[in-house]
């Protein structure tokens, strides 16, 4: 999942409004940031075992939980951070094909091969996240305008990615 992960972060903002959106966005993309770091460091694993396997994401969620709890003393917020990190794996199983554990099977619906289905799946998560996020905004006369701006920007980004996938099937991997 690509921009759909933002939907998870936006929904989490509704669950715990005191958590900064930047923290939630970093949490929701944690496995992908690890992937980028491993690639730059030259130790990238093509099966994404160190970033997207169940044990790897559980460790990330634990680290996120401890780090946020120590920094803020907000245990509920720390649980939300851990849940957002875990959501990355669950959402990736819908659209991607990800490892389970070392020696275990790869699982996922791999909707990336079907950009329209991928856009629909990501769109549903983005839509749900944006609706929940709208309830965290200060009261306004026309709150739907704000929600529409966020929704439009995120859906446009996702559409761009899906079109790029459609046009460039074989992009180089790390």
């Amino acid at each position: 999942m690509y921009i759909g992960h933002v939907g998870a972060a936006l929904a989490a903002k509704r669950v715990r409004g005191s958590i900064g959106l930047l923290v939630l966005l970093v949490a929701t993309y944690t496995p992908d940031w690890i992937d980028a770091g491993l690639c730059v460091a030259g130790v990238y694993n093509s099966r994404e075992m160190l970033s997207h396997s169940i044990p790897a994401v559980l460790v990330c969620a634990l680290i996120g939980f401890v780090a946020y709890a120590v920094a803020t003393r907000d245990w509920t917020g720390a649980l939300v951070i851990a849940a957002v990190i875990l959501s990355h794996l669950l959402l990736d199983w819908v659209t991607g094909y990800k490892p389970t554990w070392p020696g275990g099977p790869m699982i996922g619906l791999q909707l990336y091969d079907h950009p329209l289905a991928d856009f629909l799946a990501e769109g549903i998560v983005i839509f749900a996240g944006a609706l929940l996020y709208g309830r965290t905004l200060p009261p306004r006369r026309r709150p739907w305008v704000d929600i529409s701006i966020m929704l439009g920007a995120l859906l446009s980004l996702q559409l761009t990615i899906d079109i790029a996938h459609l046009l460039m099937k074989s992009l180089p991997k790390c």
Partner: protein
Amino acid sequence: MTFEQFAATTSASLLMLAGISADRFLYAFRLIGALLVATLVPLLIDRRFRR
């Protein structure tokens, strides 16, 4: 040698000197760029809403 050829040769050489293959550089560049955009766009919109 045109500027484009010079730039392509030089950047490829620099990447090789740094021990980074062109594919790896492109993948990392694309991934980090996408992550930054996916983080900054909702963040900036949110900041504007809460001002």
